[in-house]
């Protein structure tokens, strides 16, 4: 549905996006991750046709963005990072303009406005000037605008930034619902969001793709180590010293009140750890195996890619 091939974009001297390629199939919800300034917005702008790439090609729904931009743009609903609201228009007038801009006739426009107002729960705000809306509702109007022409592809740039936690939950539900029959690419730098909404993630850093996989695979692939988290009653320094002597142990960290022990994935060190503690007479309050979180994966990947450069 979306194909990006060898996309590069330079602003003057600065290389914002450096030769990236990926494909998004119909019906997928893909998260686009990366630290600020990684090139997420630039890539999304190239996909929506707001910017022309310096090099490379973009296809949306089999239309080439360079050769057939109008047709390609017809398939896209786009919520930019700055919500594009005409602050002197009411929500309804704004949605009407957005619909007509996408070429809907007046009869369909009326029907679609009612539908998106319903989906985005804007019923009470139809006659309010968009400039008077709170941030969360602006975001919803922005989303309503993006889906008004019922596009196959949705590009959402940071859809949950700056809105309160309750609205974040609602927005996520909305995006999930929209993703049932659409292809969605959404960017964010907040990780828990991605694991909740997306099936697949593309992580970019400094204009390059550093990882691209399903969330499950990504954590599996990177989890060559396992972590044990322990709470122990005992003098910290001695505990660390003694634990370090365990043969299979790769690394030990103390983050009060937890000791984090890293082992190779294949090892089963629990019994040995228990034994050591018993010998020393320290009490074990808790021991659990923890998965490497998406945050850690993300930090690890972006750090690795920076070291390579």
């Amino acid at each position: 549905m979306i194909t990006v091939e060898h996309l590069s974009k330079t602003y003057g001297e600065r290389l914002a996006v450096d030769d990236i390629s990926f494909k998004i199939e119909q019906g997928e919800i893909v998260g686009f991750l990366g630290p600020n300034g990684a090139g997420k917005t630039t890539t999304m702008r190239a996909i929506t046709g707001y910017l022309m790439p310096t090099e490379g090609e973009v296809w949306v729904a089999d239309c080439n963005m360079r050769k057939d931009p109008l047709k390609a743009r017809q398939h896209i609903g786009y919520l930019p990072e700055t919500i594009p609201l005409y602050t002197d228009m009411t929500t309804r007038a704004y949605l009407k303009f957005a619909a007509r801009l996408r070429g809907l006739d007046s009869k369909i426009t009326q029907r679609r406005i009612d539908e998106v107002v319903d989906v985005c729960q804007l019923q009470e705000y139809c006659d309010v000037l968009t400039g008077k809306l709170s941030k969360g509702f602006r975001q919803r109007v922005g989303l309503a605008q993006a889906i008004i022409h019922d596009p196959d592809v949705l590009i959402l740039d940071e859809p949950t930034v700056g809105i309160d936690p309750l609205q974040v939950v609602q927005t996520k539900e909305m995006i999930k619902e929209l993703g049932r029959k659409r292809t969605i690419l959404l960017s964010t730098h907040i990780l828990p969001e991605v694991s909740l909404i997306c099936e697949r993630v593309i992580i970019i850093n400094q204009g390059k793709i550093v990882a691209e996989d399903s969330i499950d695979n990504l954590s599996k692939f990177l989890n060559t180590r396992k972590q044990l988290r322990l709470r122990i009653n005992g003098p910290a320094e001695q505990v660390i010293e003694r634990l370090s002597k365990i043969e299979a142990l790769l690394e030990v960290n103390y983050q009060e009140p937890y000791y984090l022990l890293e082992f190779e994935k294949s090892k089963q060190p629990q019994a040995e750890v228990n034994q050591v503690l018993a010998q020393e007479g320290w009490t074990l309050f808790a021991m659990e195996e923890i998965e490497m979180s998406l945050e850690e994966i993300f930090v690890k990947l972006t750090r690795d890619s920076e070291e390579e450069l």
Partner: protein
Amino acid sequence: MRRIALICGKEIGTYLSSPMAYIVSAIFIALSGASFTTYLAQTSYSDTSIRGFLETGQLLILLFSALLTMRLISEERKLGTWELLLTAPVREYEIVLGKFFSSLLVLVGMLILTLYFPLLLLIFGDPDTGPILTSYLGLFLLGSASVAIGIFASSLTPNQIVSAVVAGGILFGLWFLGMVGSLIPEPLGEILSYFSLSEHFPGFVRGVVDTRDLVYYLSVTAVFLFLSVRSIETERWR
């Protein structure tokens, strides 16, 4: 065509819902009215023409075109709505033309409001209607060129003030080019004069519609609209 009308309609809506167009029109009518009457009084009401209005009117049109057009593209950039327009299935020239026609319509509205000057002359005197009609044609053409220049300036920057200043600079620069031209020996002087906005207006005031003048104003309009479209297009590549 439908999309040009859509964008034009949206802009007209914005003009009508914000104070700018009303203030500009009010000041335009007040100042040109004052100048219309003073001229009549100076000639002891012997010259029943709208020359007084025209003298100030032409300069006011330059100034107010810069003010009316300054927000057209600049503001969209600032609000971020530019991204909505440029990612919608709309061509760049449709955006530019839509905005051009909207401000031209406001300008025409302002000119219509001044029609009571010649109307007063018709009721209380015996004016020569030919020059009045051609003068209005001249004002319209001058307005269309000025608005095109204003839109071009607006396409260059997200800052409305900068846009107005740039538009004013180009407009008054082109206006006073005629004076510079008259000081410089031919043929350079004549060439400079030909490019001046002011050199092509007196014909219309005298009641003469010269094709060269028509072509000049229409070309300036077309050139600056074209430059605006190009300025938007190149932005995608920057």
